[in-house]
């Protein structure tokens, strides 16, 4: 019995690996690129949103064989983190060791820190399109060597955008604000950013409330929140919780303008409308111009949904940046790609707006500066870009549940970001 079981396990493993091997026996060896996202678990909607962006980028890169980076197509290897560490580690391990990818696009804030040591060991490049956590602000930077980048801005940027919007774009000038955030890492990261940004702009926070996700009732929390009558509430939770919060907020008849982050998205809006009519979300978004409109149309063909899904632009940019770096490096060696990234993404190179443009410029021997869909993707010393932010309002009038009401440009919030970073540096020094 025992022997039989062991033989059975061996047979299964051999079959599985055999299957994996057969898959790779192509004529032209494609460049292997990993995509590590939470397709299941608490943040499944993040994976579902980012995935089509990466798919679109690969499709565009592979469309014309003449423009293949180093004359090879790109193949995506996808793994699921389940929004948990153990599967994320196993997935990343599989990507690096079994699929032999040259780098990873992903994962999210929840799991990115578990993957960092693996990436470091593999000597590879990791570009996260979704991890906004402020805890990456230092990690990816000079201290550990340059292997973690992101195409999504740090939550510091997003919260600066949220606070900026509250101060400048609301029909009234707020004098009292509050935070209402979940007890998760992402939410606390947002809360920390809001707290510091409010200090910079001088907006007093009268109440700061944290709560547990997925509860059947938030009435007591809401009551506490509105005790001191805040006019603006910066909040972050998750779609399921948002729906409960807004329904009960509406029922209790409270006032106040809610401003959310990237978690205030269409999934959340679909769940919580019509109660959440008028709630604003400030999140990474593409500029509205001809170029991005065309991009959204192309994306819609892949995603089968209307509009840009969350993080799809960031994932798209990450894959494009990978392809350009590979071309620049001239090989798909992990370290070479890593070293080439900055010379395709940021000044002083020639600004390019599409992959085709970029690769042609590279072949002409020029340094380039890729301007992405999600932002300019010019990395600072921490490997972070300052992306475009968009403001959207939840409304039943739009079939997708959210309507765009404006854009926040990097230069508009630069002062706030610098202020926040200064506060933090001071605080770290004081310790």
């Amino acid at each position, binding site marked *: 019995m025992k022997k039989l079981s062991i033989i059975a396990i061996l047979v299964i493993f051999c079959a599985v690996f055999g299957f994996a091997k057969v898959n790779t026996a192509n004529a032209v060896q494609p460049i292997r690129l990993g995509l590590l996202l939470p397709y299941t678990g608490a943040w499944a909607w993040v994976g579902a949103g980012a995935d089509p962006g990466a798919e679109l980028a690969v499709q565009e890169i592979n469309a014309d064989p003449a423009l293949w980076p180093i004359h090879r197509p790109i193949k995506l290897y996808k793994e699921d983190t389940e929004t948990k560490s153990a599967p994320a580690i196993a997935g990343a391990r599989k990507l690096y060791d079994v699929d032999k990818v040259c780098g990873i696009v992903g994962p999210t804030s929840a799991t990115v820190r578990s993957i960092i040591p693996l990436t470091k060991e593999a000597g590879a490049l990791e570009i996260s399109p979704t991890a906004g956590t402020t805890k990456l602000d230092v990690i990816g930077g000079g201290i550990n060597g340059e292997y973690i980048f992101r195409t999504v801005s740090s939550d510091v940027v997003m919260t600066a955008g949220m606070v900026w919007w509250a101060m400048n774009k609301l029909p009234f000038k707020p004098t009292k604000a509050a935070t209402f955030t979940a007890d998760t890492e992402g939410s606390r990261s947002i809360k920390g950013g809001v707290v510091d940004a409010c200090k910079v702009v001088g907006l007093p926070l009268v109440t700061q409330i944290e709560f547990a996700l997925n509860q*059947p009732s938030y009435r007591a929390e809401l009551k506490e929140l509105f*005790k001191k009558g805040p006019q603006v509430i910066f909040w972050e939770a998750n779609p*399921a919780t948002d729906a*409960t919060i807004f329904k009960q907020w509406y*029922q209790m*008849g409270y006032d106040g303008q809610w401003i959310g982050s990237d978690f205030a998205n269409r999934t959340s809006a679909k769940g919580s409308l019509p109660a959440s009519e008028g709630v604003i979300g400030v999140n990474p978004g593409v500029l509205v111009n001809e170029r991005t409109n065309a991009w959204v149309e192309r994306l819609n063909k892949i995603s089968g949904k209307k509009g840009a899904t969350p993080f799809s632009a960031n994932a798209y940019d990450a894959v494009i940046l990978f392809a350009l770096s590979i071309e620049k490096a001239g090989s798909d060696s992990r370290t070479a790609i890593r070293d080439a990234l900055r010379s395709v993404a940021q000044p002083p190179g020639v600004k390019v707006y599409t992959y085709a443009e970029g690769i042609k410029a590279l072949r002409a021997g020029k340094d380039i500066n890729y301007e992405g869909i999600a932002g300019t993707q010019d990395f600072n010393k921490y490997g972070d870009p300052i992306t475009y932010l968009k403001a959207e309002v939840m409304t039943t009038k739009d079939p997708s549940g959210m309507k765009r009401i404006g854009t926040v440009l990097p230069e508009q919030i630069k002062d706030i970001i610098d202020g926040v970073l200064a506060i933090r540096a001071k605080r770290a020094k004081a310790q």
Partner: protein
Amino acid sequence: MNRGRKTRPRHSSQDGVYFAMEDLLSYGLLTFATLALPSLGLCLAIKVTKYFNLAYGDIVTAGAFLALLMNLSFKINIGIALLISIALTALLGVFLHKVVFKALMEAKVGPLTLLVVSLGVGLVIRNVVLIGWGPQPYQFNTPLTRAKHLGPFFFTPNQIVMILICILVAIGIFLMLRYTQLGRLMRATSDNPSLSLIRGISIEKVYTYTWIIACGLAAIGGVFMGMLGTIKPGMGEEALVTLFACLIVGGIENPYGAVVGALITAFAMEATAIWISPPYKVVSAYLLMFFILLIKPSGIFGREKIQWKYFLGFLRSRQ
């Protein structure tokens, strides 16, 4: 200031006085409305079948999603959807009993084995729901209304109906247990399953009816949870331990205890959220359960007296 929400709530800080007790009354009653009926159903199931069913939370989920199917896909009014969902969920319960649990109970396996099996059954239901509806949250298609003050209470019309239904159904179940033939049979089976067989009562029939009632109550609970908050595949699983806390507080096999336990647990949870710390709301239910187990393992309605010396359990002199 925005979107025409000009009306300030009467009880905001501007009015000066903050009646936390009134809030507690309203919030506690609403939480009670979501917990009471599933807690009662779970209690009946445990009372008659003598094992802890960990799939019950997922049956609650199934009830909510069946109502959602009726409400959203077939555009049926939520009231009628609730009735259909009760029937379908009861069918599901009977199906599970006949296919999975009946054979095991006849094989006389221990309650613990059945508990482990129910864990597997729960996994299956949860993931079937997940495949069917996806991970995103849903809302019933009900009109959005404001809450109104009614004396010390602060409810929307729907919530008043929910609380009334909850109380009426609970009273109905109590009357049924006390005065009908079925109720007597259920109690007889609970007290002594082998005796019921001898007297010619088909024990199988009693099990079937118990599951119909328990799952019907689960469906009501699921729909109420959905009406108050949102509907998602993990909702019942998250509520399950709270339900067990309600039962243990009241006394596991006592239907009155189940409802009173739900009331106490609901108020303890909301009081924690108001006065201590919102994230520890659920924990307060668990700690209450822990405390009751410490001093009176048979629950508030249990037969034994409160035994303070159980605090020193390992020093006690008697078995």
